[in-house]
């Protein structure tokens, strides 16, 4: 599989987890109160500010074959994350989650509470209010959050290398650029770099469009 295809697969798999979990965290950050919210607010940023190699190392300790969760996954389900594309997705998801959560928080916080209150006061349940008022009004901001998270997942290098390693199925585009350069394959490093630049520019334009709507 080409490096870009590996990257695409890793990013999409990561987003499957990042979007709902980060979206829910963002909603809680925007609307929750108290110490649990304060603690979440502080902790959610940790994967973003830690050096990626540390994130990768901690993931290895937890999810590696001898880690508490990794041993269970291996023993009970036969799932091994290290040296697998799933492991690369886990690493990408962990570093992308803070951007999704904080972006979603901003998106939900921007929704006028008065528009939700009038829905509730006229008889719509919290679930209906969320579906009819909150979610559609937060959607452009959520688009920004998803795009940022996807870009962070796409660019992920350090945690992926430390945790998932460099194998055929974990060789995402950023990893390939690095190793192609190491062995002197400049043509490959350059072509992948150009592809990543193009993808980033497209995403940045998309981001601009979403931001204008938000």
């Amino acid at each position, binding site marked *: 599989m080409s490096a870009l295809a590996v990257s695409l697969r890793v990013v999409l798999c990561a987003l499957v987890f990042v979007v709902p979990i980060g979206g829910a965290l963002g909603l809680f950050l925007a609307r929750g109160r108290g110490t649990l919210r304060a603690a979440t607010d502080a902790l959610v940023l940790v994967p973003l500010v830690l050096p990626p190699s540390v994130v990768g190392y901690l993931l290895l300790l937890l999810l590696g074959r001898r880690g508490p969760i990794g041993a269970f996954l291996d023993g009970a389900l036969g799932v091994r994350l290290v040296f697998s594309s799933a492991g690369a997705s886990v690493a990408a998801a962990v570093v992308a989650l803070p951007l999704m959560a904080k972006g979603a928080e901003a998106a939900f916080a921007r929704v*006028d509470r008065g*528009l939700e*209150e009038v829905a509730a006061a*006229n008889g*719509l349940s919290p679930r209906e209010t969320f579906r*009819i008022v909150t979610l559609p009004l937060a959607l452009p901001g959520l688009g920004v959050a998803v795009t940022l998270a996807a870009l962070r997942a796409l660019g992920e290098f350090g945690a992926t290398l430390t945790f998932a390693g460099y194998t055929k199925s974990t060789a995402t585009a950023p990893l390939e650029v690095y190793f192609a350069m190491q062995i002197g394959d400049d043509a490959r490093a350059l072509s992948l770099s150009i592809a990543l630049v193009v993808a980033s520019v497209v995403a940045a334009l998309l981001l601009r469009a979403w931001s204008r709507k938000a």
Partner: protein
Amino acid sequence: MSDLVVDARATVGAFSLDARFRAKPGVTVMFGPTASGKTLTLRLVAGVMRPDSGSIRFGDVAWGDVPPHERGLGYAPQDGALWPHRDVRAHLSPFVAPERVMELLETVGLERHAERRPRGLSGGERQRLAFARALARSPKLLLLDEPFSALDDESRRNMGEIVRARAERGAVILFVTHDREEAERLGDAFVLFRDGKTEETSRLRGDETISRPRPEE
């Protein structure tokens, strides 16, 4: 018949409200200067804000722990609080069956604007839409916060007749207005607001302090 009994205290910033009154089925007009506690009282009754102390009862039910959507209300807040992403029809479709939507729009004279978004409506049209949304589920308790301030005299009267018709059918209606003529035309009873205090009266004396309605944007 269910009465609404309000006996509630609340503080917002430097303003404190001490609202005590009973509203029977019919139109209770809430009258008084700007920033005297009328809107805050409606928010407490709607349940989108909690009183610091006291209670609000409707019929036999104490509303302390009843969430807004289970109170069976219709609420048209002062600014309309229309949903910018939904057209006129979609402001009513969550509440009533599709055939009732057009009927309601005809009642308030918006049937030709069903596909428009709030942005494309005039101030008066926005108010009529907020009013229609509050009427949609035929609530037993209607909270109307200066609902017709941007309407011309004729549609103001027409809308007023709808309010009266709901009152005759037994709804309890809290109606905020700054217009003395409208207050006297619609009101069965009055609650005068002044500096966060309330006073019940069966008729306006004519010397109550009021302020001009806010100019339309």
